[in-house]
């Protein structure tokens, strides 16, 4: 993958998604290929089954939020977006325009701006599902409100930016489980058939016992926004959220969490401790690092080397490698023996003309929504909040190890009272220093 451009990607997904909505309606939901595996693996579906109409509200109408909303309606028949909440009116307008252009208008009276817009949206009785796609700093509060209002939840990763938020997610996940509220998260690799099949191979011993891993998300610089006249501190930070630690959690959470999540999944556990490096050389705005390198120690001598970078003109690539006593895998589709010979490969479905392809028919961004709708309509309960909270916390542990230069243990980070961001979230000036973290202590001269 050369460069991730969210907006471009969403454009493609939207087109693909709309096509799928039609296709899924034709299949009428009878195309469920496999049931959930005993190991708790998600089902691989061709479309969500038919059932009661599900109305969804979108919280966070930016690029990913609008994209997720489109993914949702593409997942199967009788799925609608009927309301939107966002801090900014212009984001709501853009989202509504987009849906209107599909002939699926969202009524203006169901759209709410401001920091408490999500509460008004979730108070709407007829909403069954909410899609949470704001910057992750706000996710724990949104998730709690959603479960309190008994809405099924799709929420984007990462699910929080600090341990305080993670503990909130963990508790809310248990509240959701108690009352049967389904929760699917945006760690889409877990819903990809190729990953799932590779996981099954590894779980049944294809590479022997796991001895180490590598996870990497190295890419060019990501989007940023320069401050425009008339924007107050809070508005500027939220419009440029992807560059502020307190809003995004830094890119080790925002993007690299996908790879970290895969390694945790294949290892079957989370790491016990982390030591890490990181720094900032090329970033233009905000206070984040632009590279991290973290050693996640899983105990028993097993480590995963995690690296992520957002700098132009460097060796780039994203993915995971898991090495065992008898072979290794890229987790996605291929297994090699220790001599580098391919011993297993996932077979991608041929296209309509019967030509071989190297992609899945249904994008994983849509597959995860099919899973949610399937769970709601068939009663096969799903709740991915805890596993994604633990993967997010793993990333937070790595981040704090890099920021401080210290060894950070799982127990330290799980119990930490670190809470990022200003005490009061409101528009206006914000009295905060935004200096990138510096590890360790200065040399005494």
């Amino acid at each position, binding site marked *: 993958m050369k460069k991730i451009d969210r907006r471009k990607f969403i454009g493609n997904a939207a087109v693909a998604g709309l096509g799928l909505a039609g296709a899924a309606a034709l299949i009428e939901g009878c195309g469920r290929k496999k049931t959930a595996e005993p190991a708790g693996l998600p089902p691989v579906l061709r479309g969500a089954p038919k059932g009661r109409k599900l109305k969804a509200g979108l919280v966070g109408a930016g690029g990913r939020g609008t994209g997720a909303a489109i993914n949702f309606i593409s997942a199967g028949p009788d799925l609608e977006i009927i309301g939107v909440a966002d801090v900014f009116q212009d984001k709501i307008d853009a989202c509504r325009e987009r849906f209107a252009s599909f002939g699926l208008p969202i009524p203006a009276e169901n759209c709410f701006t401001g920091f408490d817009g999500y509460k008004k949206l979730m108070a709407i009785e007829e909403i069954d599902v909410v899609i949470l796609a704001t910057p992750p700093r706000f996710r724990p509060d949104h998730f709690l409100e959603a*479960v*309190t209002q*008994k809405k099924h939840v799709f929420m984007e990763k990462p699910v929080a930016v600090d*341990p305080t938020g993670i*503990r*909130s997610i*963990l*508790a*809310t996940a*248990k*509240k959701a*489980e*108690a*009352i049967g509220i389904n929760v699917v998260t945006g760690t889409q690799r877990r819903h990809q058939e190729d990953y799932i099949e590779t996981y099954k191979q590894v779980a049944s011993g294809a590479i022997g016992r796991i001895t180490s891993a590598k996870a990497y998300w190295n890419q060019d610089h990501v989007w940023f926004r320069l401050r425009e006249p008339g924007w107050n501190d809070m508005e500027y930070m939220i419009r440029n959220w992807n560059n502020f630690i307190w809003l995004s959690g830094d890119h080790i959470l925002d993007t690299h969490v996908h790879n970290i999540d895969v390694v945790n999944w294949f290892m079957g556990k989370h790491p016990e401790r982390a030591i890490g490096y990181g720094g900032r050389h090329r970033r233009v705005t905000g206070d984040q690092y632009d590279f991290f390198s973290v050693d996640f120690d899983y105990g028993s001598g097993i480590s995963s080397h995690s690296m992520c970078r957002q700098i132009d003109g460097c060796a780039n690539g994203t993915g995971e490698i898991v090495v065992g006593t008898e072979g290794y895998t890229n987790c996605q589709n291929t297994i090699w023996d220790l001599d580098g010979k391919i011993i297993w490969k996932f077979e991608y479905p041929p296209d309509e003309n019967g030509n071989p392809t190297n992609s899945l028919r249904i994008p994983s961004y849509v597959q995860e929504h099919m899973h949610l709708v399937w769970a709601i309509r068939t009663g096969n309960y799903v709740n991915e909040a805890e596993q994604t909270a633990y993967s997010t916390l793993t990333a937070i542990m790595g981040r704090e190890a890099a920021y401080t230069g210290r060894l950070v243990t799982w127990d330290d980070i*799980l*119990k*930490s*009272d670190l809470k990022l961001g200003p005490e009061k979230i409101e528009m206006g000036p914000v009295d905060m220093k935004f200096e990138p973290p510096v590890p360790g202590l200065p040399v005494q001269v």
Partner: protein
Amino acid sequence: MRNRLISSRLNKRRPLRWIFTGGIITCALFLIAAKKVISWTSTDKYCMSCHIHPHAEQTWRLGTHYNNSSGVVTHCVECHLAPKGKGYLYTKAKHGLKDLYGYLFKDSADINWESKKLIENAKKFVYEESCLECHQNLFPVTLSKEGSDAHLFYTLSSDPPRCINCHLGVGHFDRSLIHARDTSFGVTKSAEAVVFTEPAKVEKFENFTEKIPGTGVSFRMIAVEGGTFRMGSPDNEPLREPDEGPVREVSLSPFWIGEVEVTWDEYLAFFRETSSQGRTEGQVVTSRKVDAVSGPTPPWGAPDQGWGKGSRPAITMTWHAANVYCRWLSMKTGKKYRLPTEAEWEYACRGGTQTPYFFEGDPKKFTSEGFFKKIFRPDTSNIASYVVYKVNSSSRTAPPGQVKPNPLGIKNMSGNVAEFCSDYYSESAYAADSVRVDPRGPSEGQERVIRGGSFKSDARDVRSAARDHTKTKAWLTTDPQMPKSIWWYSDCIDVGFRVVCEPDSQILTKK
């Protein structure tokens, strides 16, 4: 022929059949009767026919297991016996026999009902499985943030606390058992007649009354002459523990020590002046370079347990908090206040005596432990006038006026509340000590020494040589904050401290 044989066999069997049928009917009747008896003896009415001790029924009716919006009433046996099918009959028999024995051989008025409320005792007759039998959803949607954090800790912990560690007052209402952050604690103070502007001026090494400037709070300091004493207990001292030896000669420089344990009045003066909102801020004080002292956060629950403050010893503060208190007091008074070393503590406690107590008596006669003491009452003569301990304390602290002082004029060295020392605890500290002049204990360790025993202690543990130590993890079990407080113990109600003041050399030469 064949028929006759059969019929004669049948004839022979008939009585057997009658006996068999009769047996079944008897058994059935017996079972029905037994079931009736079991359910009758499990009614609230039956329980309360014996449990007439003060407030058992009233506090139950006031508690949330009776007085709640749902109208559901939780009955005695639903908490005080294991659930049906999970040890119900066994626990019923066990408690039944114990109660029967008490009913026949004990006088209800002599039983220390107050002590049954203490968590360590309540655990013996409130069943965790019974809590969980009804409370099956630990994460109701309405659960608060603090509750969520606490229940998360409960589910994630490999060695979780009991439900009643936090929810002690739910069965029997008690106003002082708040399980919440008490932001109003110690904030308001009553008008003080005198406000000291200056600390006490001390010219000579003798007893003096310290005054805390800016407050009306004062306290007596007793001058303890330097000298040499035999620290620890000899091998032949009754009921001693191995960590009290070997006995060795220790020399000490002169010091002042508080006449009484630091009172709530004294501690609250510190709390009001230094209390801080965030723990991060509080942690900064561990650095010696900081000159402004930042002190405790609002406590969790009621630190005084609802027993009253004033001259009662302050309790539930952490060792760290006690240490910061001494630094604050030093800043306020310009003197050198600190926690006593373990050697100073024992030297001051003994006041020149080398006997098990600083008064006459035999630990074996005073102790309530052992089989015979259950039948014959322990001797309380003498000890009860000097020490607030298990037998005479009503399970709570006492104001210092209730006891006689030791030979140096110091009160409550033994009993009332156990006291922090500055030393790290080590079982083998005495054997390892090669200094023997003003020893300060091991250079590193996990837990600190506490001495003197408390209102909860047996006579054995209030001996002058008896040693104990802090138990940080256990004492913070139910603190729902993450990380846990560095200022308040959530699960320790019988430890406080007393201060020592170091005289400077000029004062000593003026003597």
